């Protein structure tokens, strides 16, 4: 299993450091994306509630 991976790495000329950094950046991107989606949903709920309050107090 190790040989094909090593060969593939050599043929792409991608250093282990670069591979590791790229994986890290992709993973952090996914993580902050998830964070944003959760907050985004709660923002929608608060905006909808604010509208309801505004209408109920008219």
């Amino acid at each position, binding site marked *: 299993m190790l040989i094909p991976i090593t060969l593939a790495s050599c043929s*792409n*000329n*991608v250093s282990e450091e*670069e591979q590791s*950094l*790229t994986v*890290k*950046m*992709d993973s*952090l*991107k996914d*993580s*902050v*994306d998830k*964070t*944003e989606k*959760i*907050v*985004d*949903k*709660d*923002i929608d*709920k*608060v*905006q*909808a*509630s*604010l*509208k*309801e*309050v*505004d209408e*109920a*107090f008219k």
Partner: protein
Amino acid sequence: MKSRKLLSLTILPLMLLWFVTLQEKGKPEKNKGKQDKKTENKYDRDKEQDKREKGKSGDKYDKDSYKGKEKDYKNKNDRYKGKEFDLDKRWDDRKWNDDRFNGRMIKLKDKKKKNWVNERIYLGVNWFNEDDVYKSKKPKNNKKVNICHKPDGSNYPTSITVSENALKAHLNHGDSQGNCNDFDRSIYTKNYWDARNGYYNQYYQTTETLSFGEQLLVNAIDVLTNRRSQLNATRTTLTPVQVQKREVVLIDLQNNVYDLQNSLDNGNQRVSSINFIF
């Protein structure tokens, strides 16, 4: 008289010696008691340990003792499902209670928001383009501008797109408007630079959303306070149905504000814990 003195001189040291001997004999007895107790405790502990290890190794007797109780454990777990974070989080019965409302408002207002992105990155930014904040678009739906962002501690800039409202904040911390001048990228492959660009774009889009959420949170807390005062002032002039309608929307808003505050808190912890420089 002399003989009595002599007698007392002989008997007194003897009594003293006898007393000391008794004391010395008593000590080991006492310690022995302690020692026995210790041994007993150790024995009990060993027995407990044996029991636990029997359980771990899947002893048939212990397994059988749980038979029929699976349902109880399952029900217990179900009861706490979704309530792990904060049992006082949602006000689900929607029945008005002044004390409860006030108590929750204190929790909302007292929450420390230092080091949230509004203070760290977007000081002075206003996200609301409309008078009514609920009509304002979130930053990701705003008009965008290109900037050249220079991450602290990195030798390489990155061209990213940010909301127009955030432009000033970025310029204030050393970024410039427009795309970056090209530079020697031979140190890494295109994949790396694409991943890096994707990461920074997402990071700043997320922090913009957090910042918008923080300003919305402050605004919503004000609305809760003001509308609650308005309800109290007009309560006697309203029909019971009107009062109930207003109470319910205030409770719903307070619930949703709680959720937003929690997700902002978690979100801020997440983004501030990232300390990698790419």
